């Protein structure tokens, strides 16, 4: 049993946490792609920017002496999401809308989004420096150790408070998004516009409003993903820039333009990364007693060395693009 608990700690929990963050980021990317037809690179900066907004709010709360039962990062999350949505709208109005009005190609918008990435990243580094910050400077990070000796395990099941809350919050927002997309008028309009923008416009859908709502959802979910990542690890200016490619991989694997595909892709990439670097010897060690002398397990038996963890996502991405470019859920392709 000890091995199973170890496997749960190392693969199931951390894979789920990583997968949730990837999924939230990928939903934004996939929605923007579905509505506006371009790969939005600056999504990483929406995530990092949102995390820094949440950090500033949390610091302000701490300075005012407000003590909350759950980590302050989660309490300020709704306010930070609103601010991040406004930021996303502002970025669209300032940088992408003028290009769209000129009828620029999606490729031009992609390059513009890289320009936005550089500017926002430059500004964040200008104000916050290159160092890293923690949400848990003024409060402890609670770690739950659930005793598993009842089922014969010597190790406890370990999960931190932010991780638990993160999984719950992601679940809630995914369900909310599902109801929004399938039940509300605006959500249906969004799906119609993703299917065929011209047809949606002639049937009387307010496309400008749909674009604005897309940015609001993308900004809010990006802020949520960034803040949760910062709560799980540390907050630094290149927080999301480093994981934007796995997020793109998640969106493409799921099928670009498909919100549910993004969730599936995010979880898939998250689990694949943790499984690939998992040391199987830790689980299979009891076999050493049965195996003959010449077939003893080596001390590390991982599919790929730990330093190649991020490349797993790229390999999955390249294989997906080769084998099934439309992704799992039949998204956009050539």
């Amino acid at each position, binding site marked *: 049993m000890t091995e199973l608990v170890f496997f749960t700690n190392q693969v199931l929990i951390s894979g789920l946490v990583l997968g949730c963050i990837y999924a939230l980021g990928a939903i934004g990317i996939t929605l923007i792609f579905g509505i506006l037809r*371009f*790969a939005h690179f600056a999504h990483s900066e929406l995530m990092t920017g949102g995390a820094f907004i949440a950090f500033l709010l949390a610091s302000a709360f701490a300075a005012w002496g407000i003590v909350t039962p759950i980590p302050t990062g989660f309490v300020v999350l709704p306010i930070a999401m609103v601010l991040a949505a406004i930021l996303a709208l502002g970025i669209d109005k300032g*940088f992408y809308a*003028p*290009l769209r009005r*000129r009828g*620029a190609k*999606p*490729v*031009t918008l*992609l*390059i*513009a989004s*890289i*320009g*936005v*990435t*550089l*500017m*926002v*990243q*430059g*500004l964040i*580094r*200008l104000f916050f*420096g*290159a160092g890293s910050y923690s949400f848990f400077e003024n409060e402890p990070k609670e770690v739950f150790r659930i005793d598993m000796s009842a089922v014969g395990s010597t190790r406890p099941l370990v999960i931190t408070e932010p991780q638990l809350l993160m999984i719950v919050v992601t679940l809630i927002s995914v369900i909310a998004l599902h109801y929004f997309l399938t039940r509300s008028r605006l959500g249906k309009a969004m799906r119609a516009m993703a299917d065929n923008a011209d047809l949606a416009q002639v049937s009387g859908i307010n496309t400008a409003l749909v674009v604005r709502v897309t940015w609001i959802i993308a900004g809010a979910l990006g802020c949520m993903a960034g803040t949760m990542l910062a709560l799980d690890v540390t907050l630094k200016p290149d927080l999301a820039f480093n994981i934007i*490619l796995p997020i*793109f*991989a998640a969106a*493409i694997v799921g099928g670009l333009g498909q919100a549910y595909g993004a969730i599936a892709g995010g979880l898939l990439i998250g689990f694949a990364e943790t499984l690939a670097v998992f040391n199987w010897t830790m689980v299979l060690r009891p076999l050493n007693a049965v195996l003959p002398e010449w077939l003893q397990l080596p001390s590390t038996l991982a599919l790929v*060395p730990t*330093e*190649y963890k*991020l*490349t797993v*996502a*790229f*390999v999955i*991405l*390249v294989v997906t*693009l*080769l084998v099934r*470019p439309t992704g799992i859920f039949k998204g956009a*392709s*050539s």
Partner: protein
Amino acid sequence: MIQRSLTLFGGLFVLILVVGWVMGLPFTSSRLVEAAAYALIALGLNIQWGYGGLFNFGIMGFLMVGGFAVTFISAPVNPVFWGSDGPMMLGRALLAFFIGALLVLGARQSERIGIRGGWKTALTVLAWFIAYCLYRSQLDPAAAYIEGLGGRDAWIGGLGGHPVLGWLFGGVLAAAIAFVVGKICLGLRTDYLAIATIGISEIIRALIKNMDWLTRGTLTVSPIPWPTPLPQEYQAGGMNIASSLIAARAGYLILAIVVLGIVLWLISRAYSGPWGRMMRAIRDNHIAASSMGKNVTARQLEIFVFGSVLMGIGGAMLVSFVQIFDPSSYQPINHTFLVWVMVIVGGAGNNWGALFGAILIWLIWVVSEPLSKAVFEFVSMWSTNFGWGAIPEIDARSAQMRVFVLGLVITIALRFAPRGLIPEVVKREGVRN
């Protein structure tokens, strides 16, 4: 058009003179050498994007390949490695690699013995897995053994060749990798191609950074010899330090400009010839081009490989100039996006535009740090006088300003000069423009 180009290049020349006057000749001369190398890289991207419309965001990977190539060719020979069991073990790993490759190829041909459909896929996946395990089982002990050789000898060492040979090898190696990448990715639509090439360049970076036995990884290799005499050699001849630096860098600069000139001449000829016209036809409407009998995929692969050769050579020139190969210094911002900004601002599809953009953006990139430092110090002085206190950590902050300036430049360029400062000129028969 020609008048505009001349004005812009004149302005650039004045800018170089101003930078030289303010920052000093040794600083300016080394920035110019780097600008020449970046110009070569920008021309490579201009071939891919400007001529062929290919969205290559994996420039960093090709620069690293070029850097590794010149390190491998021109670093001194490592006798400790060659005297050990290392070469034998690496040979076995190479053998395992080829056996694995044969296995995969065999599995892919398995329909000839009647295995089809799902069984063939399963067999191919199994063959990949066995090949991977076989290769890892041979390579891991070899890598561990070589990395255990100790100190500066813990890698395979170089070949002690001439750096210019290393540049050429950088081009060849980049071409080989571009061929494989192109085979995989070129069928994809533009934004998928961008993401796929970024992914591949990150894989290349992870490999070069972590294969310590091959590249010494983050331990870095230095010094790498120069193709032209080093400042130390001039100093041995009795020259003072400042003028020896300038003389040595001028020598390197002349060599770089010669290479750049040859490349520029060759690709301009190719551009104005039938080959260039065909490429532009494919770029503008690949369906029409293929209906005229052009093999679009093969031509795009060709242009992708050609562009990557220039990137490999440019990356090799940069590494041999700074004399150190440090895989952890490669960043997508500094090595991929910067080159894109150069080509977009200069003018995609126009070689003179790419050249102009490369030099201008490189100067902006290197000057924005000291410039913003000066601005910050000025503002800091004012705010201190007003009693608001000085700006903290001016050095660290001004180092980050150049990323912001780069983003600002590309945004302004896309908004107000979307075709670049020196845009492409489309020549038509019988029409004067």
